[in-house]
């Protein structure tokens, strides 16, 4: 019989801690499939953040290092600089990257580090109980903005994929999402491209994933998927903002 689907080899048997309908689980699975397909298991290190993916090291039979909140790109820099031939993947949430760790991601981009960064943008601090993040949409209700985010006190959402595209040290920046099967396939493609670019010495490769957080958004999973279309995409448009073809090797 022909195998048409199997659980990725790199996955352990550990149940994930993600809520039903959470985008983290989908992206974690895509990463696992790519690690298998690209045979990265023995030549790579995964750098995990603090956030709802804080337990992700337990899901992969692969070496990992758990960064402090916001610091993953700085930590990854040390790894990649000492092991330039290895695969180094950084995974960060929006609180982790855009709040606490904005300096680290920007300076990794400034230095044109040759690793891949996966940015899970769910427009909220999921782990700590759904507080407003810099990426929270205007008017979005969170536990620290009970009547919606207001510009006067909290300013504007941050478009990371566009910002990263403007950095000369970034060779690839694309925004994707995981709310339909087609888009999940497109996300996998984007991740694969980002992973491959690590070995072309062109600098940082960046994939932003708009990720539903039904728990933090106070929505049923299916409604959270809809919210991605109706509310997130208008502010955070999908697409590639920088293609590696435009960027020469360093």
């Amino acid at each position: 019989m022909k195998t048409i689907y199997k659980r990725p080899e790199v996955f352990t048997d550990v149940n994930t801690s993600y809520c039903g309908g959470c985008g983290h689980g989908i992206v974690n699975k895509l990463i696992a499939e790519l690690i298998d397909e690209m045979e990265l298991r023995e030549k790579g290190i995964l750098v995990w953040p603090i956030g709802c993916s804080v337990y992700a090291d337990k899901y992969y039979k692969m070496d990992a290092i758990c960064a402090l909140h916001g610091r993953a790109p700085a930590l990854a820099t040390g790894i990649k600089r000492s092991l330039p031939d290895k695969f180094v993947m950084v995974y960060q949430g929006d609180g982790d990257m855009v709040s606490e760790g904005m300096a680290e991601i920007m300076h990794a981009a400034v230095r044109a580090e040759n690793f891949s960064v996966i940015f899970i943008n769910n427009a909220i601090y999921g782990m700590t109980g759904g507080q407003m993040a810099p990426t929270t949409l205007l008017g979005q209700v969170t536990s620290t903005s009970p009547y919606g985010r207001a510009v006067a006190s909290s300013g504007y959402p941050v478009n990371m994929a566009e910002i990263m595209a403007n950095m000369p040290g970034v060779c690839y920046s694309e925004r994707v999402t995981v709310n339909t099967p087609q888009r999940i396939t497109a996300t996998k493609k984007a991740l694969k491209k980002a992973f491959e670019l690590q070995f072309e010495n062109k600098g940082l490769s960046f994939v932003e994933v708009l990720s539903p957080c039904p728990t933090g958004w106070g929505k049923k999973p299916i409604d959270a998927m809809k919210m991605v279309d109706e509310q997130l995409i208008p502010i955070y448009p999908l697409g590639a903002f920088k293609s590696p073809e435009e960027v020469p090797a360093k």
Partner: protein
Amino acid sequence: MAINERLSGNEAVSFAIKQINPDVVAAYPITPSTEIPQFISQYIANGEMTTVYVPVESEHSSMSACIGSEAAGARSMTATSSCGLAYMFEMLYIAASNRLPITMAVVNRALSGPININNDHSDSMGARDAGWLQIYAENAQEAYDNFIQCVRIGEHKDVKLPVMACQDGFITSHAVERLELIETDKVKAFVGEYKPEKYLLNPDEILAVGPYDTPQYYMEHKKAQTEAMKNARKAIKEIAKEFEAMTGRKYDMLEEYRMDDAEYAVIIIGSSAGAGKEAVDELRNAGVKAGLIKVRVFRPFPDEELVAALKKVKGVAIMDKTDSFSAAGGPLGAEVKAAIYGKVDGITAANYIYGLGGRDVRVEHIKQVFEEIAELVKTGKAPETYKYLAIRE
């Protein structure tokens, strides 16, 4: 009439902040203190407070924002835990040395690593030399009462130092207890309006906050800081008396529990004093002269009070909910021993590390500690330098 309520420690402190209605709260969420900024932002959104809430991007910035607003003459507050407090580290020193009486709710949680969200005192103990006052609560009532007093103490004209109002993560911050709240008008009258002596944009005095200090003056400035810390002892006692007059609840640098004729004592900080008192009661029922000293104020250090309390004690166990990795004991152990050196004769002092990263400490553990010190006193053996309690070997 006082208000009887059932609240968690986080709710109690948030309620105190609501009653005080400070000018500025700047915070970044971290378990287990997250609820405090969350409640505050909800109170503000509902028009129950007029405080300016700043949802900053990190703890480094929450402390920076508080420093800025406090320097501008605004009463400023924040809350944090664990790595959040560690991330403020350089700013803590700035707040203290600029003599800015910020009040910070610290909900104690173990520092990474390994990452752990549960209680111990490694976070605030790691900042013990930053120049902040540190006042610890045993339960939600004390967390509430302390917080209100902390504002007054820090802002006292002879002190002018920032204060950490500490409570134990989850154990106190999340468990719901019955407690008595003070009417808002009384709280407001008790803390009073914040009238700083020096502040930015005072038309009568040009002021630069935090400028470069030369070797000719730096030491004098540090001496002034330490004098303020010494003055805090008196302020703490005075303010506690006023607080007692208002509420009937008594506070001091430390609390002595059944110490009058105690031969054996434990010295402990925070929520574990509850289990400790229960152990003391059980031992007293069995005829053992046991007592407990709860250190409420760790900065300034209650050295004279400890000496007085330990004068008649034969054996004492000093309980540290953090290790200082000096390989010679925990911070409370080291400081108590230093305080009593040459001042208390013939006492056997043992130091224990307990409850790290949320490890449960039970009545039987404290009873075991009492047994061990009684045994040391009886045999005249010297205690081990320090010991880990309830540890898997």
